[in-house]
């Protein structure tokens, strides 16, 4: 069945696929994960704070984001961000936001909702005696979180956070809806140009599979190494 396949097309496209496509995909994944974890931690802290209004707003945000398909959010955001920017800055015209910036903001906002739930579970897994002991030593709420609760929560949750990041790595391929040449987008451009879509999609699937598998294996190794002994 592979008789009609032309795998040569892949070899010729490799530099473009990896130097442009994969670099974009990995950059978007790394920055989205970083931003998502920071914003997600803040949302988790708001949700667990004693202020009912703040925690309700945070909960609403998480529920809202989690009930929307990611593709739709990417799509809408790409068209809306220029107008939101215009509204915020009071500019005369819609602000020009590059495809990269727009998709990065989308992914950070979207992933923050998922990361915040992971962090919330992580923070709640720390026994109440820990913050009590920290406060008894005179640490403020902020110091208690920063030096005692969050480091432990992060360590407990790191495997889950990384697994979520692997999902994010796959999800970044959805930026194709706004015609961004990420890895999958690049593969599809080459495939359409050369009329070799099947080969290119097969190759893209293989690459995503290998990277995700290796990463999952790495997470499992890490999990065994960093577990805090109690």
């Amino acid at each position: 069945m592979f008789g009609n396949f032309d795998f040569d097309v892949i070899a010729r496209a490799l530099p473009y696929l990896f130097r442009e496509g994969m670099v974009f995909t990995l950059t978007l994944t790394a920055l989205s994960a970083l931003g998502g974890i920071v914003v997600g931690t803040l949302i988790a802290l708001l949700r667990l704070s004693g202020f009912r209004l703040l925690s309700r707003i945070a909960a609403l945000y998480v529920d809202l984001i989690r009930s929307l398909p990611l593709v739709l959010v990417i799509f809408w955001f790409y068209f809306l961000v220029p107008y939101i920017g215009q509204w915020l800055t009071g500019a005369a015209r819609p602000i020009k936001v590059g495809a990269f910036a727009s998709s990065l903001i989308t992914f950070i906002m979207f992933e923050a909702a998922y990361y915040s739930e992971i962090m919330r579970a992580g923070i709640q897994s720390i026994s109440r005696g820990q913050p009590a002991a920290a406060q008894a030593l005179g640490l403020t709420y902020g110091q208690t979180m920063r030096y005692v609760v969050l480091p432990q929560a992060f360590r407990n949750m790191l495997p889950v956070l990384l697994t979520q990041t692997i999902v994010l790595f796959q999800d970044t391929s959805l930026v194709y809806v706004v015609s961004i040449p990420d890895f999958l987008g690049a593969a599809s451009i080459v495939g359409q140009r050369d009329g070799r879509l099947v080969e290119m999609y097969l190759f893209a699937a293989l690459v995503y599979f290998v990277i995700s598998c290796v990463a999952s294996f790495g997470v499992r190794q890490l999990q065994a190494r960093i577990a805090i002994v109690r």
Partner: protein
Amino acid sequence: MIEINHVSKWYGPLFQALKDCTTSVARGEVVVVCGPSGSGKSTLIKCVNALEPFQQGKIIIDGISLTDPKTNLPKLRARVGMVFQHFELFPHLRIIDNLCLAQEKVLGRSHDEAAAKAMKLLERVGLTTHARKYPAELSGGQQQRVAIARALAMDPIAMLFDEPTSALDPEMISEVLDVMVDLAREGMTMMVVTHEMGFASKVAHRVIFMDQGEIVEDTPKADFFGKPRSDRAQKFLSKILSH
């Protein structure tokens, strides 16, 4: 040093955990709080450090009221050491860092200064060789001694102990009590929730007996062990001293 005036606390609208508790601990005094489980003794000592809120009454530490909105609670807590039933060492930090964290972040000591102080206190509780270990590598008794050293590193004006030996295996209780007895003999102001009547008879000046959220008895040690006035205290003593 510690004044507790008519303190009442409710959990929810129905359950009253503390009923109009009034007592005090003078400078250099060692006061043991005992009573059956659920009597509110742990709740009371947590209120003294403002770890538990209370709805009525006043607690004044070294002239500063806990409930005064102007009081800087973290600052006040830093001056009162607290030791917990379950040690509550920070499991992600080495022993030495457990002792240094609050010295550096709260008191603003340099790392060298904090570490020197930490080593001195670890020597005092006999654990210098464990400084680089993590809490989980130590036995319960050792962890509790580290917890005492961690509290002492802040140069507290008073120490609160919330059932410090209740979670320990019997053979480890005495190593912790020894440290506490030394502290008491050096004149540290101490409020100790415990069932260790041996400790109470050795170093306590006063014994407070609580039952159902009330301070039933608050007497000098000799009177308490001689003949407690209330039936409830007599019953409690006969139960825990019968073996």
